[in-house]
Each structure stands twice: as structure tokens, then as C-alpha cells.
């Protein structure tokens, strides 16, 4: 899976939890899940569990704590899923 495909998969995962649709339309690597997309912090864990299922990886605490932006999430996925 290349970077564009990973981003597309991540977009699909994030979509149901987004409350700011406009920000979701303008999603870039710099997009922040909480500040920009206004995702509830209790839903960030759903995104992390969905990412684990989708990419068949395990995200431990140290990796999870960085996953506040699209860029950070992609970098964790790339590192773990190769």
C-alpha cells in the first residue's frame, strides 16, 4: 500500500467520527483530529482501534500518544505496516 492509499484508507476510517464536515473536506496531512476535525477525544480511540483492524497492526501507548494529526497517524501506520 502506498502513501496515497494509506491516506485514503485513513479518510474512510475517520469519516464517521468527524463533526466538522468542512474541515474534513479540506483534509491534508497537517489536519489535527481534535483541533480541526473536532473529533471527540473519546472517539479517537475508535479511530485507533479501526486503524489497528484495517492495517492489521498493534498500536501501543507510545505510538498512540502521538496520533493527534493525520501526518502522525500515517507515520505510525507506515512504520508498523511497512
Amino acid at each position, binding site marked *: 500500500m502506498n502513501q496515497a492509499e494509506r491516506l485514503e484508507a485513513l479518510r474512510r476510517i475517520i469519516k464517521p467520527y468527524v463533526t466538522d464536515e468542512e474541515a474534513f473536506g479540506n483534509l491534508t496531512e497537517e489536519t489535527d483530529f481534535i483541533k480541526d476535525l473536532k473529533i471527540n477525544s*473519546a472517539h479517537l*480511540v*475508535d479511530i485507533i482501534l479501526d486503524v489497528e483492524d484495517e492495517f492489521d497492526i498493534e498500536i501501543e501507548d507510545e505510538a498512540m500518544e502521538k496520533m493527534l494529526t493525520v501526518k502522525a497517524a500515517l507515520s505510525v501506520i507506515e512504520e508498523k505496516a511497512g
Partner: protein
Amino acid sequence: MIGNDIVDVKTACQSSNWHRPGYLGKLFTDREQALIHQANDPEQQVWLLWACKEAAYKAWSTEFHQRRYAPRSLQVVEWSSTQEADHFQAVLHTQERTYMVKAQANENFISSSTEVAPIHILDRQLLHTPDALPKQRSTAIRQTAAELAARHFQCRPDKINIRKNELGRPILYYLNEPQSAFLSWSHHGAWAEVMLGSLAH
């Protein structure tokens, strides 16, 4: 530093599935999970613990100027009910600081707050805006925050400015000067709560 959180019980019930495999393990320590499983109302306990973590996280983030998604690093080490029904107290540890968090629960919402000495929570306002659009709710919250600050500084609300810093925390300006007073707010579903903290007079 202060921090607070609110959980709309109905919204949480509809939009979060805490039974999902792996969910509790990502958010809660073994000790916290034991508290959940022993509770008379495990679902309420989930959101009580979560609200306490969020309140402590906001105070932590403001003071240490950092953001991270590490709910298990804010550990509830003591949990107690108070004499008042449905009021609770938690002690949370982080590597840097210990937080005493107060929480209350009713059928509509769960609310939590923490204050770090010498700052005390001096004023708070609960908002119920079931029909508001997100933008309207956000305006109402900021207006309420400005009103609390105006009361504190004994000035008109239009002398108060509230800006979010790069961490997303609200910063209070009075006559365009940053102040040693702190705001914290939270909204979820139909409920919001705004708090103001400062040195006690």
C-alpha cells in the same frame, strides 16, 4: 491551572461503544478497569473515569504546554464517593503532577473539574443547548466565558477577549493583556460547562 470536562450521558450511550473489544484497554489502566467492572453502573463509571482524566489532562496540557493522546498515563490511583450522593473524588497521577478531581453524575450528564493550587475555581456555569448548531453552541460558550470573566474583573464583557492558544486551550485577555485567570470549558451533546479559575481573594 484548571481543567474540566462534561459528558452527555445520552450522547455517550448512543455514540460510544465501550464494550468494543480493546476499547477499555486502550483508555484505562488495569486498576481503572477493575473499578469499572466492580461498579453498580459500569457505564456511568466508564464516563466518570474518562471525565476525570480529561479534566486532569486539560490542566496538565495548559501547565506543561504539551498535547498527547495518552489516557493511560493519567492514572486514577484513588477513587471515592463523597457524602453527597452522586459526587465523587479521584486522585490522578501523571509523571509530573498529582491531580485531585471532583466529579458528579446525574441521569443527564457527568461533570468533572480540577484545580491546581494556588488557582481555585471561582465560578462556573452549566449550559443546556439541545437544539443549538455547533457554531451557535460555540458562540454561547464563549459568551458565557466572557460573562464569567467580566464578573470576575468587574467590567463589561466586551472588555474581555478569549483566544485559543496553539494547544487549543482558551486564554483570557482583559484589556488585551493576558491574565492570571484561567478558563476551561467542555461541551458534549446537549451539555456544556464553563469554569473560571484564579487566585482566591
